[in-house]
C-alpha cells in the first residue's frame, strides 16, 4: 500500500450513521455540554418536511432555541450576521445544520461570529485565523454528495462588496455528522444521480491525484465500493432505505478522502462550468469524471487500474489484464452515466450539450466553452492534477465533454 514521504490527515468529526441516527442528537449535544441548539436550514429542506423530522426526533429531549429556515441557496454575509444575532437573542448554545453546502457554510459562519464574539466575519477569513474551538456544531446532510459535513472550509459571500470569503480551519469541522436515511429518502432521482456522481468524483480524484495518502486511499476505496453497489439501485428505487444510508455513508467517506488529499482537473473544470453557466456541481462532476481519467491516464495508469477492484468487483478485477484495467474503469463510469440517464428518464445528463436550465434551454452553449476554459485556469485545484493543463488542453477536454466523445489520445499532452 502506498505511503507518501510525508502526509497529514485529520477528520475529527464523529460519524453517527443509521436509520434512527437523528435520535442520538440530544446525547451527542449533551456529551459536548450543549442543550439549546439553533437549527439552521433552508426553505427547500423545511418544505420537504425534513426539518420537522429532525425536530420530531429531538424535541422530547431538549429545547430548540430557534429554527432559522431561510438560508439562501448561495451563502450570504447578511444572512450570517442576522442569524448570528438571532442565535444570541434566543440564548442558543450550539448549532444544528440541516441541509446542503450553503446551510453548512452559513452555520459555520454563524459559529465564528457567536464563538469569537466578533462583529466582522472578514477578520477571520483565510487559513489559521481561528485559534480555539468554536461552539458545538452538528451537521445533518440532506444530500449524499458534497461531503461538506466533514470539511474544514466555509465559503460566505459578501454580495454587497462582491467578495467571496473563504474560511479554513480545523475548528470549522463539525463536532459530529449525523447521517440518517430519512434525510435523503425524498431526493428526486436526477439529484440522487448527480450528487452520487459528485461523491464518486471526490473519491476517484482523491485516489489518483497527487496528494493521496493511506487514509484518503482507504476511505476513497470504501466510498467507491459503496457507490458502485448502490447508486444505480437507489436512483431506480428511491425508497431503498439501506441503499440511501449506504450512499450517505459513501458521500461522507469520499468527503474524508478528498478533504485530506485534494482533487484535480475534474473539479477545476467543474468549478469553472458552475460559475460561468450555473450548472449544478454534481452534474458537472458526472460529465467530466471520465475525462479526468482519460487525460491523466499515462501518468497514473497503475493507480487508476486499482480502481477496477472496488468498481467492478474482485472477479472482474482478477480476470482483467493490468493494461486493460484503466480503460475498463473509464468505460464502467461512462456506462454508469448511461444507466443513470435511463433510470432518470433522460434527466441525468451524459454530456454538456444535454444539460438544460430551468427554462429548458441549453445551459452550456458551445460558444461559452472558451470562457469556461479561461475561468478554469484560475482555479487552485489545477495544481494537484497529475498532468499539466493550459488553455488549449482545457478547451479540448471541454469540447469533447460537450459532445460526449472520448478524448483523442493523440491530442493529450504528455509532459
Amino acid at each position: 500500500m502506498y505511503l507518501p514521504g510525508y502526509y497529514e490527515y485529520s477528520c475529527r468529526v464523529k460519524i453517527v450513521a443509521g436509520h434512527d441516527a437523528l435520535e442520538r442528537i440530544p446525547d451527542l449535544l449533551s456529551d459536548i455540554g450543549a442543550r439549546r441548539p439553533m437549527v439552521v436550514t433552508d426553505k427547500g429542506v423545511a418544505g420537504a418536511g425534513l426539518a420537522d423530522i429532525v425536530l420530531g426526533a429531538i424535541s422530547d429531549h431538549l429545547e430548540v432555541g430557534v429554527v432559522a429556515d431561510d438560508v439562501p441557496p448561495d451563502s450570504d454575509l447578511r444572512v450570517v450576521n442576522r442569524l448570528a444575532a438571532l442565535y444570541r437573542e434566543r440564548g442558543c448554545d450550539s448549532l444544528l445544520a440541516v441541509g446542503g453546502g450553503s446551510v453548512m457554510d452559513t452555520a459555520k459562519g454563524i459559529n465564528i461570529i457567536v464563538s469569537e464574539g466578533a462583529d466582522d466575519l472578514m477578520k477571520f477569513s483565510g487559513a489559521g485565523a481561528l485559534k480555539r474551538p468554536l461552539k458545538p456544531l452538528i451537521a445533518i446532510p440532506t444530500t449524499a454528495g458534497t461531503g461538506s459535513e466533514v470539511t474544514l472550509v466555509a465559503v460566505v459571500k459578501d454580495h454587497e462588496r462582491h467578495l467571496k470569503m473563504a474560511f479554513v480551519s480545523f475548528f470549522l469541522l463539525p463536532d459530529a455528522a449525523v447521517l440518517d436515511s430519512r434525510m435523503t429518502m425524498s431526493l428526486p432521482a436526477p439529484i440522487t444521480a448527480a450528487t452520487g456522481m459528485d461523491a464518486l468524483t471526490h473519491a476517484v480524484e482523491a485516489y489518483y491525484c497527487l496528494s493521496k495518502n493511506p487514509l484518503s486511499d482507504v476511505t476513497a476505496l470504501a466510498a467507491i465500493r459503496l457507490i458502485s453497489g448502490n447508486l444505480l439501485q437507489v436512483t431506480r428505487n428511491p425508497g431503498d432505505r439501506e441503499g440511501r444510508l449506504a450512499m450517505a455513508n459513501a458521500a461522507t467517506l469520499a468527503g474524508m478522502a478528498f478533504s485530506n488529499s485534494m482533487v484535480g482537473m475534474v473539479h477545476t473544470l467543474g468549478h469553472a462550468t458552475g460559475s460561468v453557466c450555473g450548472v449544478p456541481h454534481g452534474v458537472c462532476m458526472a460529465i467530466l469524471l471520465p475525462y479526468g481519467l482519460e487525460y491523466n491516464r499515462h501518468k497514473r495508469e497503475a493507480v487508476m487500474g486499482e480502481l477496477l477492484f472496488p468498481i467492478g468487483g474482485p472477479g472482474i478485477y482478477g480476470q482483467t489484464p493490468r493494461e486493460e484495467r484503466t480503460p475498463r474503469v473509464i468505460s464502467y463510469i461512462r456506462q454508469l452515466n448511461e444507466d443513470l440517464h435511463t433510470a432518470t428518464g433522460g434527466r441525468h445528463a451524459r454530456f454538456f450539450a444535454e444539460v438544460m436550465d430551468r427554462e429548458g434551454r441549453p445551459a452550456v452553449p458551445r460558444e461559452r466553452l472558451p470562457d469556461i476554459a479561461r475561468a478554469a485556469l484560475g482555479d487552485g485545484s489545477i495544481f494537484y492534477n497529475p498532468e499539466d493543463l493550459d488553455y488549449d488542453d482545457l478547451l479540448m477536454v471541454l469540447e469533447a465533454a460537450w459532445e460526449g466523445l472520448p478524448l483523442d489520445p493523440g491530442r493529450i499532452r504528455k509532459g
Partner: protein
Amino acid sequence: MSPSPNSFVFCSPAKVLSGNKALENLPVELAGMDACRPLILTTAGLASRGMERTMAAVFADSGLTVGFFTGIPAFPDRKLVRALYGLYRDRGHDSLIALGAGPVLDVAKALNIALSGAPEDLEAAAAGTLANRKLRPLTAIPNLDVSGYEMTRYASLSSLSLTAPTAVPELIVLDPRTVLPEARKTTAAAALLTLTQAVEAFLHPGRNQLTDAYAYGATRYVMENLPTALKHPSHHSSRIALANAAFFAQTAFDNLSGGMIFCLGMAMARRCAVSPGLIMGLLLPHGLLLEMDREETPGRDLFLAVGGAEDYAVIEEGMGIRKAVDRFVELLLELQSLIPDFPRSIRDIGLAKSDLEELSGAAGNVGGRGSLALSEVRYLLDKAWETRF
C-alpha cells in the same frame, strides 16, 4: 432483524503528521491548538538516545517554551502523576507531549485527566463516571515499541485502568527521527500486536466501513513492511509504515473493543514475562481457524487485507480464512528465521499446561463476540499448546 451494516458510530479525533520532517510542523500545530508551553514527557532511555536534543532543536526558534521530564519508569504509579501535576502547575505548562510508547502515554493521559480537575479524578475516570470533559492538548510521538493503547482512550497506572474518550491524543507525530529502529524482537512483537488488533477488528460484530478501512490499512502495512523493517532497520519508510499501522489498528480497536486473541494475549503476558504481541502472533492462526466454521465470518474481506487485491481476486469462495492463516504461518516462520529466540509455541513462554484452564476462564467473556463459549477458548489454547510453528 439483523442490524443494518450501514449503521454505526465512528470517531478518530486525532490529526496525524507522518513522515520526513514531521516534527518540524509541531510548533505550528501546537500554536494552532493555543498551546505555547508544552511539557514533554519521556523516559531516561529515550533521552539517552538523543531524543531530548532532537526535541529541543525542533522548538529552538519556535518562540514556544518547552519543559522536559525524562523520568517515566516502566511501571508508573499514581504518586508520579501527583508529582507531575505539581510540576506542570508550578512551571505554568499548558499542554502535554508524550514522547515514547506504553507507560509514557499512560502517564500523559492520566496526568491530563488529573489536570482537568484534581488528581482524585483518576478514580472517577477508572470508574468510567468521568464526563466528556475537555482536556489539554495532548500530542503523542510514539515509537515502534507500542502497547496497543497509546492512541486510544485507555490508560493504565499500576492497578488502575482508565477510560476517557477525550484522552485520545489530539495530535500524532510519526517521524523517522523518533520512530527509531528497535531490537528485532521488540519490533516484531509490537507489529504482531498491531496485526492482531486489525484482524480482530475485521471479525468484530460491530465492524463498520470505517473500522474496516483502518484495519485494512494496518494489515496491509504490517504484511508488506514487517520483514523489511527487521532486515533493514535503517529503512525509514518501513518503520514509518509500521508506526502508521499501529495508529490505524488502534483507531479501529478504540472504536470497537478487544477481540478474544488480544485479550488472551494480554492475560497470558501478565503471567509470564513475554511481550503480549509474541503470544498473540502464536494464537492468531488458531483463532482464525476457529472462525472458519462460522457462517458470518467475513473471510474474504480479511484476506483482501492480508493478501492484497491481486491475490484476493483469484481465491476461491470460502477460502479466505484458510489463505489468511497460511500467510500468517509463513510470516511466523520468516520471523523465526530472522530472530533466533523467537518463540515457536506457547510452550516456550514459561506457562504450565495447568495454567490454561484458568486462562480460558479469564478470557471467556471478553472479546467482540461476547458470548464466546468457554469451551472454544479452551480448545484454542489446547491447539496452540500442541502446535510448534
